[in-house]
């Protein structure tokens, strides 16, 4: 047993209270862009700082336009990450571009940072023939093999034990890469969370588990999700290196993740990071938060906007100006809208894609089912007009 209890004996039955272990929060940057007195900025040069900031801005614009076009009925669904951009861009900026990222669904910031193009985003959102996922999943289920970004799955927390396994494979491969799994504080209630972190600690894998504690899981506040001091203390329970950071503080997220990566890759030890933030927008385009939280609460967090915080820092560094800022926002807004228009015009996935990728090669029964379906579509072209048109066309050009 690795619990050597010899020299830690008590003779009175003292219960340790649930709040015995309070985990502090690591912060660097104040909202006004200055550093905390005792804090030190991580090494960030101007190009990196601007890559990070422009990724945050682009993410914001993507989300703004994404929701707007859902409201216009152009998109069936959208999920914004507003307020959490420092976390989702910041962690990505701390990684090697070859490290695997496995996310939940609200981490478009990481994809932007890695260089997923607006066209790539839009093809997925519009489920068109160029979507790498072949239009099979709902909007926001991005994935990119070349960017080492695992295709998103809607089922919460399933990516966590998968990250443990992926990282184990990376350890076997010995090429110095790690896996970062990102998840919400709600998803951390799932059994898969427990499985993932415990296995990662026991099997000593180079994985970083990054919890976005944004206060809500749809309508459920964190206070009805757990009773302890957030998610971080669980890491200690698993015998795992753990840190809590201010998730709206780009410099803190960046530095914590850099150091976490060092531990993961050099020591083959997993790390848990809990990033404290707030989901400023609705859960998704299907949600209306006014039923479960107050405007005042939202306003409080709006004042802690991570973009503003970073901008203030950039301004203080002399690396950025208000004019450049305005121009960037506007340019991105335009670029997003242009990409949308383009993606909307791309046709949808070919009917033949109905049965590909279920297996490596479609077995006989699936081929038969497709053939029957096509025969049926020929009978009723007016009912299935889009696929009727495809019947005699060659298969679409939709591989990425």
């Amino acid at each position, binding site marked *: 047993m690795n619990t050597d209890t010899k020299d830690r004996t008590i003779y009175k039955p003292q219960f340790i209270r649930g709040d015995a272990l309070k985990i502090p929060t690591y912060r660097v940057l104040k909202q006004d862009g200055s550093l905390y007195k005792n804090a030190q900025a991580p090494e960030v040069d101007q190009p990196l700082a601007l890559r990070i900031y422009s990724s945050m801005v682009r993410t914001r614009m993507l989300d703004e336009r994404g929701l707007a076009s859902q409201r216009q009925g152009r998109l069936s669904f959208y999920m914004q990450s507003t307020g959490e951009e420092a976390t989702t861009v910041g962690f990505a900026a701390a990684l090697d571009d070859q490290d695997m990222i496995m996310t939940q669904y609200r981490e478009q910031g990481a994809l932007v940072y890695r260089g997923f193009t607006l066209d790539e985003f839009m093809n997925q959102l519009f489920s068109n023939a160029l979507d790498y996922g072949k239009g099979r*999943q*709902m909007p926001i289920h991005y994935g990119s093999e070349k960017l080492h970004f695992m295709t998103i799955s*809607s*089922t919460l927390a399933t990516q966590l034990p998968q990250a443990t396994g992926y990282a184990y494979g990376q350890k076997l491969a010995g090429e110095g890469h790690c896996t970062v799994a990102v998840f919400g504080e709600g998803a951390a209630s799932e*059994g898969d969370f427990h499985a993932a972190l415990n296995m990662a600690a026991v099997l000593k894998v180079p994985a970083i588990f990054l919890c976005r504690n944004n206060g809500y899981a*749809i309508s459920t506040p964190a206070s009805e999700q757990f009773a302890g001091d957030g998610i971080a203390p669980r890491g200690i329970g698993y015998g795992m290196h753990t840190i809590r950071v201010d998730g709206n503080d780009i410099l803190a997220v960046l530095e914590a993740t850099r150091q976490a990566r060092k531990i993961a890759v050099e020591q083959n030890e997993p790390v848990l990071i809990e990033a404290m933030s707030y989901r400023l927008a609705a859960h998704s385009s299907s949600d209306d938060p006014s039923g479960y939280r107050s405007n005042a609460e939202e306003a409080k967090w709006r004042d802690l906007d991570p973009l503003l915080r970073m901008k203030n820092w950039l301004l203080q560094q002399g690396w950025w100006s208000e004019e450049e800022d305005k121009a960037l926002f506007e340019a991105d807004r335009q670029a997003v809208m242009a990409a949308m228009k383009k993606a909307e015009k791309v046709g949808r996935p070919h009917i033949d894609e*109905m049965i590909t990728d279920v297996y490596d090669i479609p077995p006989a029964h699936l081929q038969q089912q497709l053939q029957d379906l096509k025969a049926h579509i020929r009978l009723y072209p007016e009912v299935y007009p889009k696929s009727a048109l495809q019947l005699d066309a060659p298969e679409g050009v939709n591989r990425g």
Partner: protein
Amino acid sequence: MAKMNLLQAVNNALDIAMAANERVVCFGEDVGVFGGVFRATSHLQEKYGRARCFNTPLVEQGIIGFANGLASQGSVAVAEIQFADYIFPAFDQIVNEAAKFRYRSGNLFNVGGLTIRTPYGGGIAGGHYHSQSPEAYFAHTPGLKVVVPRNPHQAKGLLLASIRDANPVIFFEPKRIYRASVGEVPEEDYELPLGKAEVVREGSDITLLAWGAQMEYLELAAELADKEGISCELIDLRTILPWDVETVAASVKKTGRLLISHEAPITGGFAGEIATTIQEQCFLHLESPIARVAGLDVPYPLALEKEYIPDQWKIFEAIKSSVNF
């Protein structure tokens, strides 16, 4: 009588069940203040207090494990799984625990008070994980009852019966027609029988069988067939497990033909069970092979959803094939 949509009928049934029996407790993800993501539990927390209607942490295996324990204690546990696609983390607690609780204890303990409500089915642009129809997984599990209503009136009566049934019940709610299906619903407390199919339309040439949202396509197909002079008998199975062999067999003996339709992938779907039983019981009456119109054997797709759905046109074609066999 009042006009209600299916969601309102569900909400009304829960309200009545909670008012009638203070041991009824409703819970699940976002079920409390918010009233559930579809609002099926709206106002229940307000009316009956946080102790009897509440949010749980986000953990389906925990929700059903908790529900099993609560039911074994003697409470009436009505657990919501937010989407049927997310019921699988709770599969062990349902299949190994709830279903076997009474048998393994020789009836010392039981979880008869358990009802699991969950919205199922496609047609709402939900992709793989907001569209599945997993009823067949549970129908292979002795000890469970599996119920699916087709409209508001059925939903209320069957849900009240499910909550009060002395066995664990999985109650699948057809979310595609949550708001679209509107009808007259008695305001008072009533129950519809579990384990009984309903002949919703009599006919002579072929029996059409389905459940839940799929009944709508069946009815549309029957109308198409009507125009071609084919008389269809329509049956709503209502309870998938244990299912009403007698009613179906009697109908098939009369019509000589059977078509079964479900949204789930065809292979291993519950139509296979029904067809096999019916070919055994009605072998000499069958004038054509029993037909299935079901989902393709692929994960539920998004962009090609319309093509995937076993709609009235596919059913109509299958009816003609059967009649012309």
